[in-house]
């Protein structure tokens, strides 16, 4: 039976995937609990700048692969559902979708703990979910309802989850990178032995504040990892038109860098684990994730005026992160095609349920307009010096 899976392989590009170095073609245990180590090679080797690249060989197991698969399917389904909701005018304003880039979110999460901090830009739905956010929180926030992660007051670009150290969710391009270096500073200050991953795009890579923050992080030896999610287009401008040097992993100059295939979740995991170890000892490092977004920059961008449809379908066929994991799972005989399809159906239902629930959720109360402007609802009240007791009403 294993052979039939091998026979159904697609073009030679994925030949690497189908040659497990040590496969366990044995009695198949349920995939979700199997932790027998499996060794896989990443799709391409890492390219390094000012450091030793980690090995191409990645350790994983069936359980992890199953988690990757399921999580990425959830993310993909969620983003596509958000697309429909936006077109149905249930989501308004800006909506930046992450489909195609899921491997970065899941691979990173696999290499980290919840003590490590992640901060990203406005393309944050999937990173939020990877950090433990629920689908209901996502859809409710997108639709501006009370159950949203920011109580409906943030919107698509302002997802946060403090208890799992997910710091958002930022609308201004590049502004999250100094914040991220501040998080790393706090980690060093409090001797947390944890790191911060500050994500940004190839468009934001040209922001000055990035280099300012990198400079300070390098001077102060902060455990900051700057991750450039290079999807090759900064809004509507291709990277070669925006950056004189599109080798983003090299642009840290004195800071080491690593270029990673961002469509390969295992490569992402390997690189993030390597970066975490590096940053804790040696200060900041840059990771460039070579990835791709299928949608346009946002929902108001068709995504086809600055790139060809052939390019998009080409990437989808050859480099899709979910397909890669699916093929890995099937080639290692960890599951059947039917089981995987069942998972997809299940996820679809889960997403639909969450949407239905979110639609039922009420909009915020009018009083919410004025809450959380200040801590403790200041505004018209004067607090005493201990900041605890209301002293007077000012207005």
């Amino acid at each position: 039976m294993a052979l039939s899976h091998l026979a159904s392989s697609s073009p030679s590009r994925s030949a690497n995937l189908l040659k497990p170095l040590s496969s366990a073609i044995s009695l198949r245990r349920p995939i979700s609990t199997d932790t027998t180590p499996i060794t896989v090679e990443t799709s391409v080797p890492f390219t390094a700048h000012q450091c030793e690249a980690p090995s191409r060989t990645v350790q994983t197991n069936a359980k992890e692969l199953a988690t990757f698969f399921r999580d990425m399917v959830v993310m993909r389904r969620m983003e596509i559902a958000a697309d429909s909701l936006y077109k149905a005018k249930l989501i308004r304003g800006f909506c930046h979708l992450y489909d195609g880039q899921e491997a970065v979110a899941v691979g990173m999460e696999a290499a980290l703990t919840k003590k490590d901090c992640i901060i990203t830009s406005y393309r944050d739905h999937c990173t939020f979910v990877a950090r433990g956010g629920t689908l209901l929180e996502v859809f409710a926030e997108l639709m501006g309802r009370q159950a949203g992660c920011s109580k409906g007051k943030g919107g698509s670009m302002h997802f946060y989850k403090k208890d799992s150290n997910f710091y958002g969710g930022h609308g201004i391009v590049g502004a999250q990178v100094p914040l991220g270096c501040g998080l790393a500073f706090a980690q060093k200050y409090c001797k947390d032995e944890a790191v911060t991953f500050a994500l940004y795009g190839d468009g934001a890579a040209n922001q000055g504040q990035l280099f300012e923050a990198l400079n300070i992080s390098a001077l102060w030896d902060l455990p900051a990892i700057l991750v450039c999610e290079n999807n090759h287009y900064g809004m509507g401008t291709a990277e070669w038109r925006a950056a004189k040097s599109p080798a983003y992993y090299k642009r840290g100059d004195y800071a080491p860098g690593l270029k990673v295939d961002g469509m390969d979740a295992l490569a992402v995991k390997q690189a993030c684990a390597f970066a975490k170890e590096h940053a804790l000892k040696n200060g900041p490092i840059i990771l460039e994730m070579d990835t791709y977004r299928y949608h346009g920059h946002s929902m108001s961008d068709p995504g086809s005026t600055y790139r060809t449809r052939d390019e998009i379908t080409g990437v989808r066929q050859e480099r899709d992160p979910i397909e890669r994991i699916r093929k890995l799972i099937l080639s290692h005989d960890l599951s059947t095609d039917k089981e995987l399809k069942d998972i997809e159906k299940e996820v679809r239902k889960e997403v639909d349920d969450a949407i239905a629930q979110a639609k039922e959720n009420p909009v915020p109360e009018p009083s919410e307009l004025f809450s959380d402007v200040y801590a403790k609802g200041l505004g018209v009240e004067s607090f005493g010096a201990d900041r605890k007791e209301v002293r007077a009403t000012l207005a």
Partner: protein
Amino acid sequence: MATGFHGVGAAVAALSSSPSNSFDSKKLLCSPRRSFPVRKGASFVVDRSDGSVNLDNNPKARRAQQLIVNAVANKADSSPASSSSKPGHELLLFEALREGLEEEMDRDPRVCVMGEDVGHYGGSYKVTRGLAEKFGDLRVLDTPIAENSFTGMGIGAAMTGLRPVVEGMNMGFLLLAFNQISNNCGMLHYTSGGQFTIPIVIRGPGGVGRQLGAEHSQRLESYFQSIPGIQMVACSTPYNAKGLMKAAIRSENPVILFEHVLLYNLKERLPDEDYICNLEEAEMVRPGEHVTILTYSRMRYHVMQAAKTLVNKGYDPEVIDIRSLKPFDLHTIGNSVKKTHRVLIVEECMRTGGIGASLTAAITENFHDYLDAPIMCLSSQDVPTPYAGTLEEWTVVQPAQIVTAVEQLCK
């Protein structure tokens, strides 16, 4: 639970939320005990500059206990009574800021300072002198000249619970960090649905100095005032500088503390015991009957100088240092307006879109019925501050103009 006795003059009213405020002036004069809960271990006193609570009764009694003598003659004497209690110690304003900062850093290990030249150099205005030697390089951090990023880093650190004090060498340089201050500092508490507080303090000198040129004479309070979620305070005396610095650091909200380049060398006697100034409160500098003059920062001194002349001419101005630029202490201001019915605002911001403009609107909206005359607002001219000394003098409000304005207002 020891509470420091803060002397007769400062009105130490227990401004509790109980509706029936039995205002006993006698009680106020002799019993210093406060009835509000004091945090364990810390004995501190709040300086309530204005004892007025419910002014519907006993205006005379209120006046009797406000023994702020000779407020016209002296400059920064908001607490004249402090010298009558403990000896205290004399400090210059920048030293007072430093003392407040140092005390807070001692008290809370999460407080750290970031800025250009704050560490080894000791601060370009000496506010942080000696702190790097005492607390080390990880708590007093010298940054490169990169306001946008180090302000952002301070805000990021604040999101995790640290309490950074970010110094702009001149407030004008913080324009480079405007995005971080507006979007991340001011708005994150709201857009995260209350998940994060940003207990950061952003401070630095601003205002028109002595021929520093246009770019180094800016008044950032007018640019920042619209940002939701931040608090802004302006200090003007060593006493309130130290008090406001400490309160700002302890606040869970982001606070911008505006200092003034020309006020750093003011000297005053400060009490030895721990104290804090209320962030949202205005300071009664000189009570009066005829006109309410609202001012802050350096203009307070121009106003007091004008007040000398006015008193000689027979006027009785009430001078209030508003201190809290965002939110306005409409309680104190309103009570004053209800008493005098005439308002003059003297500020250093420019005419257009300054603090005075907002204050005029706020007073008109809330206290229109109590005004006998339109509010007058004296501000700086809408020009870049020129270098030439004479021109610079004409850009800002001078005491003579204040006198003329009061005379006009009280006609």
